[in-house]
C-alpha cells in the first residue's frame, strides 16, 4: 500500500476520458443561449443506432468512461434506451443531459433499467413566464413534473440553469426552487458565447453589478446549505482577466461526436476554419484521436502565437478557448481575448461596456430563438 496522497484529483492527461455524444440536433425547445451551431439544419443525417454503438465500443477501448448523452434533446431519439443499455454493459458512467421534454414515467423506468446513472435537468428560470419565454415553449410545469420523476426513481437531482442578463437577477429564487425540488447539485452556468448565444450576446451578457449581486447571493446560499447541496457558479469569462483552460487543452481529455458523426475536440470546434474534422463513418476513433490532423492541430504549443508562446502561464490555460479566439479575432491561433495580455482584450472589455450601457434598456436587434427555419437561413460558415 502506498504512502502517497490518497487521491489524485487531476484527470490523467492524454486519454479521451470524457465522451460526449450529441445524438441529435432536433429539440423541442428554442433557447436563445443554445451553443449548438447556428447552421445545424445544414449538417448531415444523424448516425444510426449501430453507428453510435460502434462509437461507444471504440471510445471505451481508448479509455473513455464518462459518457454524456446530449443534443439537441437526446430523448427525441427513440433508440436512447438501446444506446444506454450498451453503454452500461461497456462500463460507462452515463449522464443524460436533458430539457426533460419527453421524459415520461415509462421512459425513465426503461432508462433506469438500462443502467442510466444520472440525469441533468435544465431549467431556464425559476418563473414559468421567463422559463417559457426563453425556451419559446410551455415547459415549466412539465420540467417540475420531471424533477419529481427524477426523485421518484432515486436519481441524484442535478439541475442546470444557464444564466444571462434576463434571469441572473433571479438567482436567489432559482436556488430556492432547486432546494424545494430536493436538488443535490445545482450548476449555475453563465452563458458561453457560441452558436445561438453568440448571435444574442448583446441581449445576454449581464452587467458587472448583476454578476456581483448573483455571486453574493450564491455565496450566502452555499454557506446555508453546505453538506446538503453543492452549488457551482460558472463565471462568465468575459469578466475575467485570464482565460479558462478550455477542455484542459484541445485533444487532451474530451471527445465530442456530433449528430452526423463529426468528431470534435470541443463541442463548439466545428466553427474553426481550415480544419477538416474527421467523421466516425469513415475513420475509427483510435485513428481520429491519435493520428488525425484535426485532433493534433492544437496539441502541444507549436500552434501558439505571441503572447502565448512565451507566456509562463501557457501550460496552465493553454491560451484559453480556440473558438473564442476565432469568433472575436478571426484567428483561432491567437490568444483568447479574455486574457488581458491579449492585444485583442479590448474587444472583450468593449462587449462588457456595451452590456453595462444596455443593462437598463433594450438592445437594438431582436432576440433570435434557436429555430430550424432560421438555421437554414443562416449561412454555413465553411
Amino acid at each position, binding site marked *: 500500500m*502506498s*504512502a502517497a496522497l490518497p487521491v489524485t*484529483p487531476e484527470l490523467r492527461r492524454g486519454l479521451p476520458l470524457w465522451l460526449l455524444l450529441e445524438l441529435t440536433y432536433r429539440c423541442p425547445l428554442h433557447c436563445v443561449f443554445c451553443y449548438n451551431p447556428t447552421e445545424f439544419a445544414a449538417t448531415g443525417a444523424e448516425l444510426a443506432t449501430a453507428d453510435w454503438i460502434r462509437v461507444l465500443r471504440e471510445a471505451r477501448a481508448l479509455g473513455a468512461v464518462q459518457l454524456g448523452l446530449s443534443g439537441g434533446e437526446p430523448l427525441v431519439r427513440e433508440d436512447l434506451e438501446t444506446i444506454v443499455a450498451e453503454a452500461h454493459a461497456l*462500463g460507462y458512467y452515463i449522464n443524460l443531459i436533458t430539457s426533460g421534454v419527453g421524459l415520461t414515467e415509462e421512459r425513465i423506468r426503461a432508462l433506469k433499467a438500462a443502467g442510466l446513472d444520472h440525469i*441533468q435537468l435544465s431549467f431556464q428560470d425559476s418563473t414559468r413566464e421567463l422559463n417559457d419565454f426563453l425556451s419559446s415553449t410551455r415547459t415549466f410545469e412539465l420540467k417540475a413534473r420531471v424533477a419529481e420523476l427524477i426523485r421518484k426513481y432515486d436519481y441524484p437531482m442535478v439541475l442546470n440553469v444557464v444564466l444571462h442578463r434576463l434571469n441572473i437577477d433571479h438567482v436567489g429564487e432559482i436556488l430556492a426552487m432547486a432546494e424545494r425540488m430536493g436538488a443535490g447539485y445545482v450548476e449555475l452556468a453563465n452563458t458561453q458565447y457560441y452558436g445561438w448565444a453568440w448571435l444574442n450576446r448583446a441581449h445576454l451578457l449581464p452587467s458587472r453589478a448583476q454578476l456581483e449581486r448573483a455571486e453574493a447571493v450564491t455565496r450566502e446560499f452555499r454557506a446555508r446549505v453546505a453538506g446538503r447541496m453543492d452549488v457551482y457558479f460558472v463565471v462568465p469569462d468575459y469578466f475575467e482577466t485570464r482565460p479558462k483552460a478550455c477542455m484542459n487543452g484541445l485533444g487532451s481529455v474530451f471527445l465530442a461526436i456530433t449528430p452526423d458523426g463529426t468528431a470534435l475536440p470541443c463541442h463548439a470546434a466545428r466553427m474553426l476554419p481550415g480544419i477538416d474534422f474527421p467523421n466516425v463513418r469513415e475513420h475509427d476513433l483510435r485513428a481520429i484521436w491519435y493520428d488525425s490532423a484535426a485532433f493534433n492541430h492544437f496539441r502541444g504549443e507549436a500552434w501558439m502565437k505571441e503572447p502565448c508562446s512565451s507566456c509562463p502561464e501557457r501550460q496552465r490555460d493553454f491560451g484559453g478557448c480556440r473558438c473564442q479566439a476565432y469568433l472575436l479575432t478571426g484567428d483561432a491561433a491567437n490568444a483568447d481575448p479574455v486574457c488581458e495580455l491579449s492585444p485583442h482584450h479590448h474587444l472583450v472589455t468593449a462587449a462588457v461596456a456595451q452590456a453595462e450601457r444596455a443593462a437598463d434598456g433594450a438592445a437594438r436587434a431582436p432576440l433570435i430563438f434557436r429555430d430550424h427555419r432560421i438555421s437554414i437561413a443562416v449561412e454555413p460558415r465553411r
Partner: protein
Amino acid sequence: MSGDGAGRAAAGAAVAADARPAIPRGLKLQWEAAQEAHVLLFPEGQVLLNGSAAEIMSRCDGMRTVAEIVADIERTHSLSGIADDVGAFVALALAKRWLELRP
C-alpha cells in the same frame, strides 16, 4: 499506508469505529485499466484513487464498520496500526460526499 498527513489534516474530525460508510447512490467505484487505477465516478466527474484509497473504498458497503474495514485490510496486507489513517481517509471522503454513513 503510513504517515498520510495530508489526508488527516484535510479531514479534521475523526470517524467513529462503529460507523458504517457506504458509497452514495449515483456514485460508482470501478477499476479502469486505461488509467491503471480505481476511479470513483459521479455526475460529470471522477477522482482517481491510489491503492490505499481503493482498498478502503472497495470495502465501504454500508454493512462493515470502520473497525471491521481496518481489521480486514490489516489481515489482507499483513499490516498493523492503520486505524488512524483509515479514519482520516473516511472523514475526508465523507466531507467530500464520496462516502456517506448508513444506520
